[in-house]
């Protein structure tokens, strides 16, 4: 059976035009998708059943038993951390936050090691953005700063920017100018009209230089700024200002590099400055297909996009204190529920070490690095393949992922609902 307009649950592009052929409970072909999409849909290496650690070895267990033990661990904990959420649908995220509320837990999503700094910057200066179609139909200057879409968001350029024809740009590739800014010459840099190579850690200075030029202060620019020549800076600024509609996309090259959220703040302020001359938008290249959804759901329920601490009863937020890496670094939490992410692989070693010390439970379809650190793992259906639910694209557009077949695994929502019910009962509510 061929299913059309399938939504891809891999990256923040959330492409919704895939054609997927299904035979029984197996995907047999994927059209229109990128390599990442094909791997995701065709992947067939799920964890077969719930597992638990018994001393130094692993054993299979039942869903009932695994959920019961998880509830006990969470109820026994003084400072549980509920982490992950970006790889599941919004309905499951919603239960997760209510579970945290019930437990007085810390709840955090993968933004914490991704675009958390972007959120902090937005909280300082705001965010002039737009939906991706606005870029596709209008943008004649595209900037990719500290992001390599060809590897990380393979169809971003063909669906939304460089190669996508739009209403006001009938021949996109000819009509658009592309600027890539990075510390290394990535695949994406190879197709740029202008590649700006910055010395590592130099983003803040280069952004400041561009802001100064746009503000008409060319005279104060030195010969070279973080490895970028003054001539190139002038050229880039002129290109930026030549746009009728400019769109800046940025990635972890800004959020993870020295300066962190101040880099993003500077990029947003450059965008704001450019808006005094022409139209500009700026957008973070969100990684997980539904990381933005986790921010949205966290926000409408708790008021904050990530790093929410319910220990005081109220929702408390203070990045640097209530963020997962910090909580683990301080060895503060005494139990951790990981849902739809892999902190074992993506957190610093010291955090992985603490996860191994405390009872860590993972709800995830696949074994991963965190599996080896856990006490229990509960396999679930993959949203977008054998489970469905709401996802938010990197630009905030909500799209419902599809269930392509009914498999044998329960969804995240089902597991979390059962967990929530047990915890509620244990708390006498």
């Amino acid at each position, binding site marked *: 059976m061929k299913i059309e307009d399938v939504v891809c649950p891999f990256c923040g592009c959330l492409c919704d035009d895939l054609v997927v052929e299904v035979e029984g409970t197996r995907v047999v072909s994927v059209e229109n998708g990128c*390599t*990442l999409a094909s*791997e*995701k849909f065709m*992947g067939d*290496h799920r964890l077969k059943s719930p*597992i638990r*650690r018994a001393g*130094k070895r*692993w054993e299979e267990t039942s869903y009932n038993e695994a959920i019961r033990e998880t509830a006990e661990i969470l109820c026994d904990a003084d400072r549980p951390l509920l982490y992950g959420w970006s790889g599941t649908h919004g309905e499951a995220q919603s239960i997760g936050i209510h579970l945290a509320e019930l437990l007085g837990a810390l709840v955090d999503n993968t933004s*914490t*090691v991704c675009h*958390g*700094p972007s959120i*902090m910057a937005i909280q300082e200066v705001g965010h002039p953005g737009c939906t991706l179609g606005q870029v596709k139909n209008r943008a004649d200057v595209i900037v990719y700063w500290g992001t*390599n879409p*060809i*590897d*990380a968001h*393979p169809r971003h350029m063909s669906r939304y920017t460089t190669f996508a024809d739009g209403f006001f740009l009938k021949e996109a590739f000819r009509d658009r100018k592309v600027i890539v800014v990075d*510390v*290394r*010459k990535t695949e994406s840099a190879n197709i740029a009209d202008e590649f700006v190579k910055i010395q*590592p*850690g130099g983003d803040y200075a280069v952004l400041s230089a561009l802001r100064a030029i746009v503000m008409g202060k060319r005279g104060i620019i030195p010969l070279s700024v973080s490895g970028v020549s003054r001539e190139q800076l002038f050229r880039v600024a002129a290109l930026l200002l030549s746009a009728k509609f400019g769109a800046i996309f940025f990635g*972890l*090259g800004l*959020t*993870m*590099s*020295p300066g*962190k*959220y101040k880099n993003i703040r500077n990029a947003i302020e450059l965008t704001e400055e450019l808006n005094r001359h022409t139209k500009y938008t700026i957008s973070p290249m969100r*990684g997980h297909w539904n990381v933005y959804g986790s921010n949205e759901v966290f926000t409408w329920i708790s008021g904050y996009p990530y790093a929410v601490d319910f220990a005081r009863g109220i929702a408390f937020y203070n*990045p*640097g*204190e209530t*963020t997962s*890496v*910090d909580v*683990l*670094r301080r060895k503060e939490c005494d139990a951790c529920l990981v849902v739809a992410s892999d902190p074992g*692989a*993506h*957190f*610093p*070693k*010291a955090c*992985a*070490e603490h996860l*191994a*010390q405390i009872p860590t439970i993972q709800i995830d379809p*696949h*074994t*991963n*690095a965190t*599996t*080896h*650190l856990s006490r229990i*793992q509960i396999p679930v259906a993959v949203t977008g393949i054998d489970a469905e639910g709401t996802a938010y694209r990197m630009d905030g557009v909500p799209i419902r992922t599809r269930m392509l077949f009914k498999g044998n695994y329960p969804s995240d929502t089902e597991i979390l609902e059962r967990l929530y019910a047990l915890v509620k009962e244990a708390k006498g509510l």
Partner: protein
Amino acid sequence: MKFLLNTGRTIKQGSYVERKNSTAYRQEATSLHMHPVDMMDLEIEEESHVRVESDYGVVVMKVYPALWISQGEVFVCLGPYANHLVSPETHCTGMPDFKGMIVQITPTTEPLVTVAALMEQCGGIQYED
């Protein structure tokens, strides 16, 4: 020799991301990209093993030449191997210094370790399918 370590996504890392215990993932996540001139200075060949050490950890990786990287810098895709070297300090931002770590690189004959073994080094217990 000291290098500045940069991390980032690669298409292969993304492709194997749901098979973290596979050989293919390990191959990609331990691949360290280095400028050929630096490789000459270290007297190593393509696919040589190197010991990469920071103040926070040490891990074995495999070297590949890359012209897209500057001398003095190396690149590894994000993942458990690179993160073995990262400080958990976030400077009150929640975000560790995943990019721009200073590492010491020396040739070695030590083998690569599996993700499972790496996690066992962190105090976990290996799970095998």
